Every structure is written in structure tokens, then in C-alpha cells.
């Protein structure tokens, strides 16, 4: 089962995509490790590593980069929120 990965706002624009589905690579067990895996693709994916105060959510709950990720999860990456 894949992980569904979502990107929002300036990060979505920098990456040129809002979502992808990925077979979770062996050894990737946290949000931070998934972020590093994607950023290692090179440009423009390095934006995942350079976005200031990058935030993440797992299954629509905002969590830290140390949060666990498993197959079937929905993982989102985005800049700090600016609503209201």
C-alpha cells in the first residue's frame, strides 16, 4: 500500500505538484525521513529541505517531523499556516 503525499501553498508551487502517491521505501519510518527522501531527488524537491519552519500532518493531524509514517497514511507538507 502506498502513502499519499500532499503539498500546499508556496511549497506546492515550488514543487509544481500538489500530490503524489509513493510506495514507502524500505527504512522510511518517520515524516522527517520521508521529507529527506523526497528532498534527495534534487531540484525542485530541495524546497522540502529549505522551506523555513516546514510543517507536516499525518492523516490530517499536525505532527512533528519525528512522527511515524506507515503504508496507507496520508502525509502532508506545508509552510506555517497563515489563515484568519
Amino acid at each position, binding site marked *: 500500500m502506498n502513502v499519499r503525499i500532499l503539498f*500546499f501553498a508556496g511549497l506546492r508551487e515550488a514543487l509544481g505538484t500538489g500530490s503524489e502517491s509513493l510506495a514507502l521505501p524500505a527504512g522510511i519510518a518517520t515524516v522527517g525521513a520521508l521529507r529527506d527522501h523526497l528532498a534527495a531527488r534534487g531540484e525542485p524537491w530541495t524546497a522540502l529541505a529549505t522551506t523555513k519552519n516546514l510543517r507536516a500532518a499525518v492523516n*490530517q493531524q*499536525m505532527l512533528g517531523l519525528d512522527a511515524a509514517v506507515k503504508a496507507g497514511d496520508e502525509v*502532508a507538507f*506545508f509552510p*506555517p*499556516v497563515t*489563515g*484568519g
Partner: protein
Amino acid sequence: MSVSVQQADFDAGAEIAALAAGRDEVGAVASFVGLVRADKSAAGVGAGDSAVQAMTLEHYPGMTEKALTAIVDEARGRWDIYGVRVIHRIGRLLPGDRIVFVAVASAHRGEAFAACEFIMDYLKTRAPFWKKEETPAGGRWVDAREGDDHAAGRWATDGD
């Protein structure tokens, strides 16, 4: 339905009336309306190239509603309140347009004021919305303000 995410405008007066309708235990309704500001702080009076001509609000469908509902639930746990209404608009908005509405009904003003401010402070830092401004110089994503984190932090309890 206490939480709405919608493109359409809202009628603050009608929402406030609905919160208190048929509930004679309500003695206070506190409300907040956020508007799109033509930002004149960035470059002084007049603003020139940095003047905001329009704003587009993006959000994370599904998570947004969950995050807002969680914030309302937390407010209900902290204060003795009878009703809450939160409306956040999305899509393209113009200066002067209403963006966000929060109203809280309670027996007395203290709970209503506090819960209303709490909900706004948490919404600012926990609900997945992002603003992109249109200016004469082009589009720019709004940066999060450190002050918003401090405002939300004021409400932290030992359990947080």
C-alpha cells in the same frame, strides 16, 4: 453545524442571532470578524508596489474542518459556553471582504470574550489555511507571524 469552510460571504448579524435564538440561558455573545486589509504597513502609507489588490486563500480540505472542530471542542472544554460558530472563507477575496467569523454564546461576557479570542488565536496557528496576496509587484505568499505563535502560546496549559 458549528464550523463552515466556504467561498460564500456570511451575515454576521444573522449568525449572532442564530446562536442565541430560543436559548434564554444565553446572556452574552462575543464575536470577531476578520477582514482583508490592503497592507499599508509593509512600505509605509500608500504602500505602492506592496499594496494588496486581492488575496487567495488555500486550505487543506478535510483537515481544515477537523482542525477547526478540534479547536472548538477544546474551547468547550475550557469554558462554560453554550454555542460556537466559526466560518472561514476560501478562494479569492478583495480588500474589505470578510475572511473569518467567530462567535461564542455563554451566560456571561467573560467566558464569551475569552473563548472567542482563544479560538481565533488557535485558528491562526493550527488551522491549515494559507494566504497568497496579489500586489502590483506580483504574487506573494504571506509569511507566518511570530506574534501569532506567542498569542496562541498564552493559552497553553500544563497539559499542552
